[in-house]
């Protein structure tokens, strides 16, 4: 952002500062930032770092709400700093803290290690019974547009962690798997190519899984990509109830799409490398 010292209007930034190696407790530090049209909270933080305080730390990357790095607690709500304009929040005062429900690494940088561990615990990838096709693919697994709609919403998750920071259950029970990982379990369970629902059950339906959700709905409210993890959790509950009552069967993944007569190999597309395992 271009520095604008002569700007008439300024916005007061109140930013939480904390270095666990040096500080006993976090403190709030104030900065005045020139207010320009279209300036986002992330732009404001960059301006502070460039002009006022180079030691201010946060995590960000894409600046366009895609990478999910810049999740922060801004004016009382978990939001992405890059896709929230100051004028839309409060042109007078912006309070920025690190995401709640996570340890602080430094200033506005949350420790997301536990978050990604939970994500991994639900095996967020396609699981197939026949390993041969995965190791030596002969084509692509079939999926109709209708089948895509079943899970596409949940595939928009950018792993920003806002849902976990908004969740009241995560706040009180750190063992809770959390809305992000559970929504991803549904995303893969709902994928017509997947056969791993049973393998995910241990993580999804444990004592710390879906049954811990109180359906506060805060996760869905704060999601910057419009994903609805609260609904995903309810759908996971419904799924297991139907399976237990033998009203729904475990899914068999779709087969490989047969090659048509007109099919020709495109020489411009490089061949897949040999399997490593």
């Amino acid at each position, binding site marked *: 952002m271009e520095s604008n010292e002569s700007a008439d209007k300024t916005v007061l930034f109140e930013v939480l500062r904390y270095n666990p190696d040096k500080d006993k407790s976090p403190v709030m530090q104030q900065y005045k930032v020139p207010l320009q049209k279209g300036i986002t909270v992330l732009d404001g933080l960059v301006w502070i770092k460039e002009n006022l305080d180079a030691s201010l730390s946060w995590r960000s990357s894409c600046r366009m709400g895609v990478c999910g790095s810049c999740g922060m607690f801004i004016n009382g709500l978990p939001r992405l700093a890059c896709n929230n304009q100051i004028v839309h929040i409060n042109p007078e005062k912006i309070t920025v803290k690190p995401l709640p429900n996570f340890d602080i690494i430094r200033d506005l940088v949350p420790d997301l290690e536990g978050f990604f561990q939970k994500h991994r615990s639900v095996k967020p990838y396609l699981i197939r019974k026949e390993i041969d096709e995965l190791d030596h693919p002969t084509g692509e697994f079939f999926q109709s547009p209708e089948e895509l709609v079943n899970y596409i919403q949940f595939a928009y998750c950018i792993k920003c962690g806002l849902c976990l920071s908004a969740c009241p259950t995560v706040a009180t*029970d750190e063992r809770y798997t959390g809305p992000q990982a559970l929504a991803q379990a549904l995303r893969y369970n709902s994928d017509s190519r997947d056969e791993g629902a049973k393998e995910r*059950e241990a993580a999804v*339906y*444990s*004592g710390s899984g879906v*049954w811990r959700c109180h359906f506060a709905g805060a996760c869905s409210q704060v999601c910057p990509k419009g994903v609805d993890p609260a609904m995903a959790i309810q759908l996971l509950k419904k799924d297991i109830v139907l399976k237990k009552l033998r009203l729904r069967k475990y899914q068999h993944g779709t087969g490989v799409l047969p090659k048509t007569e007109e099919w020709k190999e495109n020489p411009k597309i490089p061949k897949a490398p040999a399997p490593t395992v």
Partner: protein
Amino acid sequence: MRESSLWIWHIFAGLVILVLLGIHMFVMHLDAILAALGAPLENPIDATTVFERSRQAVFMITYILLLGAALYHGLYGLKNILFELTLPKALEKATAWLLTVAGLLLFAYGTYVAVFVFMTKEI
């Protein structure tokens, strides 16, 4: 997966309570509504009426079912609330055992009372 079965039973017990508690409320306390509907009950909470009712097999069975459903629903709910305090694993295990044993003892005692009254000829 065990947790899923317990949770489904929890919901099922809630439904059983809804039906049986509904019957209980109508028979014991909402007799005015029954009277308005043309099925009056005489002195529903009178000691002799209560005793006579308890000596009917259908009521004895509903009492035992309601007791079992209420104990399971309540104690499983209590277990969940206590577990949200993120107790140490050993304490969680002990709590679960304690609640299970308490539930079974209360159920056995309540069933004994219901069967005893059912078998009693006179008060």
